[in-house]
């Protein structure tokens, strides 16, 4: 896409606000619509947009494929790890009251925060990896078929 000047300029301007918006959706999800799933998709969209316009090598300099693959598993581990920590503290699995026994609702805040963070990591990793997998494939057809 070397000749699409407007696309490239607009993309460069847009990528940072998209990531910022994703973080806003993530951390403001307790108070307004949003949460880990939506924020993960938005975060992935920022990388995918960058990849579409500037090419796979450029975006993989920012987020290498191995990082996306590790993120997929790391998010699930953060989620399940939250449950294991609450288990070790002597409560039920995923019972967030354990993180702040005197203030159960504060414990809930911590638990929800950590769990949503795990969801964010997994969803971002999965969406970006799927995009990489599709984009790295060599197209097998001629252009006349359009």
């Amino acid at each position: 896409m070397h000749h699409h000047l407007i696309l490239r300029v607009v993309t460069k301007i847009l990528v940072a606000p998209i990531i910022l918006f994703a973080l806003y959706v993530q951390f403001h999800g307790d108070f307004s619509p949003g949460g880990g799933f939506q924020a993960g998709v938005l975060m992935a969209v920022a990388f995918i947009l960058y990849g579409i316009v500037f090419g796979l090598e450029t975006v993989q300099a920012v987020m290498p494929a191995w990082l996306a693959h590790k993120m997929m598993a790391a998010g699930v581990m953060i989620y399940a790890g939250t449950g294991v920590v609450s288990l070790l503290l002597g409560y039920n699995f995923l019972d967030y009251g354990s993180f702040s026994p005197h203030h159960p609702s504060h414990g809930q805040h911590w638990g929800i925060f950590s769990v949503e963070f795990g969801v964010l990591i997994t969803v971002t990793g999965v969406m970006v990896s799927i995009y990489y997998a599709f984009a790295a494939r060599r197209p097998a057809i001629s252009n006349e078929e359009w």
Partner: protein
Amino acid sequence: MLDLFIDLSLFTMLVATGFAIVKMRRLFGVTMMTGVFSLLSAMLLVTLDAVDVAFTEAAVGAGISTVLMLSTLTLTSRIEKSPVHTPWIPLLVVAVTGAVIIYGTLDMPNFGDANAPAQVGVAAQYMERGPEDMDLPNTVTYILASYRGYDTMGETSVVFTAGVGVLMLISGLRRRRRRKPSRDEGEVS
């Protein structure tokens, strides 16, 4: 009355988009129509008060899914071949299935009924105890992450598993192994 009008006009557009998808043979157009369908359904979800779901649908359906469809199109073909079968048997199957489903809805409570079985069960408990237990304004977030934490963990692992499946199928990580020419390769293409 205004509710009904908005509802019906959104539905008309959704059904029109659906029929356009049925008719269209250019897969590029079909992909665009899918995006339109997602945005329309996001609007409909807002009228149903499901703002979180509408947000997700708009981001996922119109964003990621369009990108994935387009990348699949570049790897496969762009035109659907013209159909060889008559459409009557599928139409019959669809009509019968639709009639059975509509027959099933006849016993359901009216749309928006506050005393429907779906409203009085565990959901009412979540709404009642939530503010005290969680002290968070967004009910969807705290049910998702805390009351229904097990469900969400399962969903997260399903997303992870689907990602692993895609990587195993087409990531090309497997290609490092030496390829043996299989017996019927080359005869196919």
